């Protein structure tokens, strides 16, 4: 497995160079996993992409590097300590570094000869391909996906020049992933929503959730979806509720700060029993926090957000597959139970890119509301399972009355004590059915463990890698449980595994151990220790190993 870093200032073309390389490696058969680290600024600063690729599945990023593609001196300074002794630093000859591992290419001069200074990126791509013993065939094939027609010829020339300039260094690994997908968490969520039949997506741009809106908007014409950029998050969520009431699958997305604004409407969807899917792509808070970085600190908030009591579901996305299938499932559950479903993602998962088995959109069928009804229609009819018949306004002779006030079965305002109690009970009865549908957490590792690591959401990859490494080092004494469905909390597997564990450690990207708290609340299970990280950077598999082995 190899690991390279492409770093430089914002605006230097890191994203394009990384995107081309990621695709090239995937097309060559590698399993690819890449993450982005960037600052909240449009130009300058220090940004980088980490691309890991190999013949076996990759689940987490790593900080140990085989190569650095440095677009500026800062990149060399900041990352040379991570580079293996036999690693390389590919850079322009103008860079001042004296590091022995540097391969300096006079890219500026070469690019000038080709006739466009902007082809320097393609020179380095060519050089990287040669270093890893790749051919240029695939590069020629995929370049048109990234570069405008009129510039292809000169970029191919640049790649060839870079390719010729260096000599091969790493053995080529044969992988079997060429026919897999390569997709980001953000795009997987968007595709999941489209596959589920989303017809209306409203949002206010906020990092790191904006990409979902952009991704759906890019396909809106083809997939027949209305994407509306709202004037604020309050409008965004109320629009989604209005559209859902009128009979289309609707979704909104935001990050924590925007979710704060949506909170009243979340409760509205709860009491009015209108299906709603909201994704909170977490970033560190509170308030503006670290806008382009990652954290898992909204769990406490989203599970209790809004005044009063109403059933809801919170699903944490763990990896790229989850991002697709759980987004689809969120619509199904929201529609069938007529309640809000909150998806919890984060910047790390959203911006990371991974190889995945092609998604099947038939795997989950989203149930749709009733289309006919006879007799006197009661929108909020008391039922045994808490789910009342749902009609779409304008689609029958009946009228559909929904209300944010407490209401009787017909939907009209009431202050009657007995109706209030019955209506609360009716809504809460949905939880009985919902709890039967909960998906147990992923169990990673082998039986016979003595230490159980517990996490949720995007720490899945790092935990998976950590358990593999720890088990090799320590005779299989480690296992992990990673929660996707998180509220209501599935308890069966948790109780079973916790009973066997000598030590239980929660691994979370927050300062207070929010999953730990939830588990204590619900099951009285206590943790022996915590591995918490909240510096805005995602924990890696190797960091978990280090913290498990060497104290916290």
């Amino acid at each position, binding site marked *: 497995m190899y690991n390279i870093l492409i770093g430089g200032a914002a605006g230097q073309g890191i994203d394009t160079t990384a995107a081309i390389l990621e695709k090239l490696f995937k097309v060559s058969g590698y399993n690819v996993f890449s993450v982005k680290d960037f600052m909240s600024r449009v130009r300058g600063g220090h940004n980088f992409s980490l691309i890991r690729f190999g013949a076996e599945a990759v689940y987490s990023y790593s900080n140990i590097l085989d190569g650095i593609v440095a677009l500026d001196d800062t990149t060399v300074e900041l990352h040379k300590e991570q580079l293996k002794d036999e690693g390389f630093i590919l850079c322009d000859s103008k860079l001042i570094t004296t590091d022995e591992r540097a391969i300096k290419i006079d890219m500026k001069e070469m690019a000038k000869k080709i006739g466009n200074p902007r082809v320097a990126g393609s020179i380095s791509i060519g050089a990287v391909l040669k270093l890893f013993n790749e051919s240029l065939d695939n590069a020629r094939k995929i370049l048109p996906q990234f570069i405008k027609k009129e510039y292809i010829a000169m970029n191919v020339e640049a790649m060839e020049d870079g390719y010729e300039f260096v000599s091969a260094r790493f053995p080529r690994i044969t992988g079997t992933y060429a026919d897999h997908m390569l*997709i980001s968490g953000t795009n997987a969520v968007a595709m999941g929503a489209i596959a589920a039949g989303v017809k209306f997506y409203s949002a206010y741009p906020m990092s790191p959730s904006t990409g979902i809106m952009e991704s759906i908007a890019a396909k809106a014409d083809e997939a027949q979806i209305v994407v509306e950029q709202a004037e604020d998050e309050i409008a965004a969520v109320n629009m989604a*509720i*209005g559209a859902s009431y009128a009979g289309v699958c609707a979704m909104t997305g935001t990050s924590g700060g925007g979710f704060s604004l949506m909170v009243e409407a979340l409760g509205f969807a709860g009491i009015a029993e209108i299906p709603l899917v909201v994704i909170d792509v977490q970033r560190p808070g509170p308030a503006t926090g670290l806008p382009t970085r990652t954290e898992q600190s909204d769990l406490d908030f989203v599970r209790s957000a809004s005044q009063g009591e109403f059933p809801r579901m919170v699903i944490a996305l763990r990896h790229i597959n989850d991002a697709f299938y759980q987004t689809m499932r969120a619509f199904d559950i929201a529609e069938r139970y007529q309640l809000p479903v909150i998806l919890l993602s984060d910047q790390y998962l959203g911006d990371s890119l991974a190889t995945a088995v092609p998604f099947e959109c038939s795997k989950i069928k989203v149930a749709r509301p009733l289309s006919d009804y006879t007799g006197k229609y009661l929108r909020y009819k008391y039922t045994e399972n808490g789910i009342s018949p749902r009609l779409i306004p304008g689609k029958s002779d009946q009228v559909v009355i929904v209300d944010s006030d407490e209401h009787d079965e017909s939907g009209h305002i009431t202050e009657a004590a007995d109706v209030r109690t019955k209506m609360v009970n009716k809504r809460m009865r949905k939880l009985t059915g919902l709890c039967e549908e909960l998906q147990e957490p992923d169990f990673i590792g082998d039986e016979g463990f003595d230490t159980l690591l517990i996490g949720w959401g995007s720490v899945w990859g790092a935990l998976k890698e950590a358990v593999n490494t720890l088990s090799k080092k320590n005779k299989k004494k480690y296992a992990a449980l990673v929660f996707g469905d998180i509220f209501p909390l599935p308890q069966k597997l948790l109780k079973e595994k916790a009973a066997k564990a000598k030590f239980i450690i929660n691994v979370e990207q927050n300062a207070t151990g929010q999953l730990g708290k939830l588990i204590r609340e619900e099951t009285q299970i206590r943790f022996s220790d915590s591995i918490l990280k909240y510096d805005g950077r995602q924990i890696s598999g190797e960091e978990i190993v280090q913290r498990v082995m060497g104290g916290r």
Partner: protein
Amino acid sequence: MTDSFCTYETAWCPGCGNFAIIDCLKTALEELGKSPSEVLVAAGIGQAAKTPQYINTNAFCGLHGRSLPAAVAAKIANEKLTVVVNTGDGDSYGEGGNHFIHNIRRNVDISHFVHDNQIYGLTKGQASPTSMQGLITGVQVDGNINEPLNPVLVAIASGAGFVARSFSGRKKHLIEMMKQAINYKGYALVDILQPCVSFNKVNTFGWYNKRVYELSNEYDTADKIAAMNMAMQFGDKIPLGVIYKQEKPVYHRKNKVLSDGIPLVDKKTNPQVVRKLLKAYI
């Protein structure tokens, strides 16, 4: 009036202007030949916002100030619905002020009937965005020091294509304004002057009656500058009628997905399209 839109017991004060407004709404809908199931009446929170509770149509009783985004999205989802927002001045211009401005820009084909009594009724008598300066209330104890918002002027300035003012004391006029607004293709505002008999002791029936007058047939509703001047007339004389009207492209015709006229709610997800989209990632 027949009773296809039914009569319900209300929680409004005797003598409230809302009674006349809801009567006019029912009459307007009947005269336009609308059936209850094709009409959606949406509202936020407030006394006026109880309107959807007392009329037999589809009803969306949402959150305070948030009726517009929900109503607009419902219309986006199903353009066959006749969507009417019936809600108050606090809901429309105070808490929902941001949505008021931005939904004018969208120009979704809905009607927005604001029961403008220049006071907060449900919370028992505080100043609203349209309260006059000097109005003494339990909060504005020394009299309201803020200048009133002129919603008609704001709407015209923001680009609304249909802006009218009416008065709950002139039912025939109000019915006519409602019908025109519902028939207008695009966002249509009718600011409805309405006395609050319990809390607004200044802007009473008598006060309005002394001042309101109906615009003559000669008034040119297409002249925007003249309309803004007319909108600014709010004092000893208050003009009633369509202050400004202009045909504009509506949201559904501007939006590429909706422009074919097939309601969004009737469009099905095509698995072939999804499969094709997913292939792009291989």
